[in-house]
């Protein structure tokens, strides 16, 4: 863990916000755990990339966002999409390839999207969505809508050209966009440090774009929430983009049933002690929130995930009629007369 990590911002997070943050984190945790179980049951047929351990980042930002702000995220995007209010059953059903999936089976786990809730898509080509998020921010800027685009990506994405193209453009055009690098220390199976010229793949490069270097503890929901408020506020008030590097760790493997044996045991143990959900639970208890209240949040989250799973499993398989629909704006797939 770096010594350069910023101190928690001075301002306290209020109680309702804390309860909301905890509730969201627990829901995302339970959803991912259930997704993993369903994967092991061979019900998730394709792939899935779980964000277990990274919940503080999705929750912290989502709670700070305005309802019409835009979220752009990666294939590791279940949490970010759900955090904006997308249907949990719809997401679960999409993982299972059911007709009641939020994309009717046409996107799958890596592409969860719910535009009505500002979840503008999960992108499966590393780094591709950074310029797209900049474009959404550009549109918000010229429409004077006051919307902000928040773009989440991994440490690995900082070494692809699109990262640099997007940052430069966003700064030059002073776009209302916040780039959030979730540095979970690994790409797929290789540590980011072994292939990157600088220690902090995003924060150390901020100065190249004239941006402040922001390095935060990604496993502390309060810190993320405060950072989110500051960076989103800056974007909304015309102060331009920010680049945030949030240090975190995924509890499981990269995807599917990857056992992640490439990570040293001591490192895993250390990071598990910094589990953002457990840590936050303790903080709530030492800050006057009762065990009963906390338990209640946890029970409700379990029930929500149970209900979503049930609904998803009841869904019929995706319909083959969908194959030739929605290539074009008229709803068709016709390419000739």
């Amino acid at each position, binding site marked *: 863990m770096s010594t350069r990590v910023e101190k928690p911002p001075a301002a306290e997070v209020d109680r309702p916000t804390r309860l909301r943050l905890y509730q969201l984190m627990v829901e995302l945790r339970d959803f991912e755990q259930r997704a993993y179980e369903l994967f092991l049951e061979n019900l998730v047929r394709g792939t899935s990339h779980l964000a277990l351990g990274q919940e503080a980042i999705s929750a912290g930002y989502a709670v700070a966002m305005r309802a019409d702000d835009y979220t752009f995220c990666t294939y590791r995007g279940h949490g970010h999409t759900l955090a904006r209010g997308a249907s949990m059953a719809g997401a679960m059903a999409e993982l299972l390839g059911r007709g009641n999936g939020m994309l009717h089976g046409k996107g799958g786990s890596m592409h969860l999207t719910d535009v009505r809730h500002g979840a503008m898509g999960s992108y499966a080509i590393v780094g591709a969505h950074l310029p797209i998020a900049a*474009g*959404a921010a550009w549109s918000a800027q010229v429409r004077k809508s006051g919307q902000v685009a928040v773009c989440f990506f991994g440490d690995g994405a900082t070494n692809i050209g699109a990262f640099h193209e997007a940052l430069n453009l966003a700064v030059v055009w002073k776009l209302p966009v916040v780039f959030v690098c979730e540095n979970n220390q690994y790409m797929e199976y290789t540590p980011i440090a072994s292939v990157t010229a600088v220690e902090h793949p995003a924060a150390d490069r901020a100065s190249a774009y004239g941006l402040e270097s922001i390095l935060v503890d990604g496993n502390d929901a309060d810190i993320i929430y405060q950072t989110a408020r500051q960076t989103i506020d800056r974007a909304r008030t015309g102060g331009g983009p920010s680049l945030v590097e949030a240090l975190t760790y995924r509890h499981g493997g990269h995807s599917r049933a990857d056992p992640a044996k490439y990570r040293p045991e001591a490192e895993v143990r250390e990071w598990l002690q910094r589990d953002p959900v457990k840590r936050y639970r303790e903080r709530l208890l030492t800050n006057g929130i009762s065990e009963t209240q906390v338990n209640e949040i946890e029970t409700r989250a379990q029930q929500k995930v149970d209900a979503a799973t049930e609904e998803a499993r009841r869904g019929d398989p995706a319909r083959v009629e969908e194959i030739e629909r929605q290539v074009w704006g008229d709803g068709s797939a016709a390419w000739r007369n």
Partner: protein
Amino acid sequence: MAELSFREAIAAGIAQEMARDPLVYFIGEDIGAAGGVFKATVGLFEQFGPDRVRDTPISEQAIIGAAMGAAMTGLRPIAEIMFSDFLATCWDMVANQVAKTRYMTDGQVSLPLVIRTANGGGTRFGAQHSQSLENWGMAVPGLKVVAPSNPADAKGLLAAAIRDPDPVLFFEQKSLYGVKGEVPDGEHVDRLGSARVLRDGKDCTIVALAAMVPRSLDAAERLAAMDIEATVVDVRSLVPLDTRTILSAVTKTGRLFTVEENPRLCGWGAEIASIAADECFDDLDGPIVRITTPHVPLPAADVLEDAAMPSVERIVETVKRAMR
């Protein structure tokens, strides 16, 4: 009717749509005060200002990505990629992101955007600034592909592309930029997915695109002097493809020739040949013949480039030999 060059018609098409719809924005490299490297956007910066006609860094991924993000959130952007060859640097954005996002989200996202690009050979620029890449776009579901052959179509099809709800790759053959032609006065909006019969002849059908259209028309004149009457069809739009017009010409004439600027393999003509073989085999009186650039990177020297691309002479010779 006013006489405009192809490049003036492009600028006129953009200006017409930007004046009509305040949500149309235009971005690209050197498109602003400089007026574009091919001078196809002269006057737009002065007319619409730096907010709506924006110069970008040399960042093709950012150009297409920004256009996509803007299109999915309410704008109707036009993005210029200076040379179509540079599409290779942002093909992820075009083929993976722009083309697939409506489908993958089952219609949650609409992408009304146009990617304009200077395409094709004839300028002795060598293999990285001369490719004819319409078939790249044609191979990706979710992209519309348009390539006009004259100033009137350049304006009308560009206007139609800007109004279209889907992403359109708009190829401007760069040796056509200086060509002049009549363009209808006032608002001019054409229709995507409509081919046009430019010449009627009973003996064979020549199907061509962009710069190959004027060459095919010239060839048809020479063939007529040899008693071979050719119908010439300008495809104009590869996706959507007006198979009705093409196949009805093939049915009437019994012979089909395609004239393609692209290298041989998987050119657009192969798809048309396959459809014709499939659907009007019994009407064909002889083999379908494709006239293309050989399967090589386009060479730079004038003599080599001219010999590589389908010329009027090669079209005439090939048709004459096949019709014997």
